[in-house]
């Protein structure tokens, strides 16, 4: 089976390579510009968190593996890391989005944006690795494609 995988060191310099890879996946899946941007943002947010909170703040080092799969109806992105176990789904949706900035704590927006940018977002911890899954619906195919 054909594989699409990118493995990068878990540092912030890798974010650009991941975004390019996800953009490529979105092109393969024929997502429109807006869905593509949102998905790239989702993955970028989650991976920035893995690097900052999961690896750096915990004094850990390791790789991040990103893969994608295109099925007739969905594009699926899988992200694996060996950083601190963390389930972004446990992070509650911020309820202060309409507050003025000066009354908001800095942060808490990354996970929110990540979930907003996908149709389905899943997390599991397996074999010592975090596994985040991003699923986006593909546009209906036109017959003359």
């Amino acid at each position, binding site marked *: 089976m054909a594989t699409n995988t990118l493995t990068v060191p878990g540092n*912030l*310099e890798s*974010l*650009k390579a991941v*975004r390019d890879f996800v953009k490529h996946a979105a092109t393969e899946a024929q997502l429109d*510009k*807006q869905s593509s*941007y*949102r998905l*790239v*943002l989702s993955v*970028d*947010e989650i991976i*920035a968190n893995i*690097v*900052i909170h999961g690896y750096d703040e915990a004094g850990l080092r390791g790789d991040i593996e990103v893969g994608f799969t295109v099925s007739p109806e969905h594009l699926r992105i899988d992200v694996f890391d060996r950083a601190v176990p963390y389930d972004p789904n446990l992070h509650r949706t911020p309820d202060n*989005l*309409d*507050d*003025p*900035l*000066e009354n*908001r704590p*800095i*942060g808490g*927006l*990354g996970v*929110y*944006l990540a979930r*907003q940018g996908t149709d389905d977002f899943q997390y599991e911890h397996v074999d010592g690795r975090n596994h985040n899954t991003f699923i986006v619906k593909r546009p209906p195919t036109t017959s003359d494609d």
Partner: protein
Amino acid sequence: MAFNLISESSNGVTRITMSGELDASVAGQFKTAVEQAAENKPKSLALIMNDLSYMSSAGLRALVFAKQKMGAAIRIFVVGAQETVLETIEMTGFNHSVILLDAYDAAQIEG
């Protein structure tokens, strides 16, 4: 495209022009520019984003930081943001706390 930032202050206005991709790896540059600009105690902060093709929450965090450093009274203008970047600003409610402009409007920003 690589991130680039130019900051310039005059008459109580700080203009920060950003291009390329603003992600967590470069947000520190934006924060530093805000910190330096804060020393001039500007009344307005204009963020020129016409050529900014990407902005993650790391950019939004720098905006919150600006309000905190420069005081809640600072007027923050976001000028020429692309549609995708605008969507992020709106989805997170930041449109309630900054003034969105299509183009640089000297009368409004410097007035």
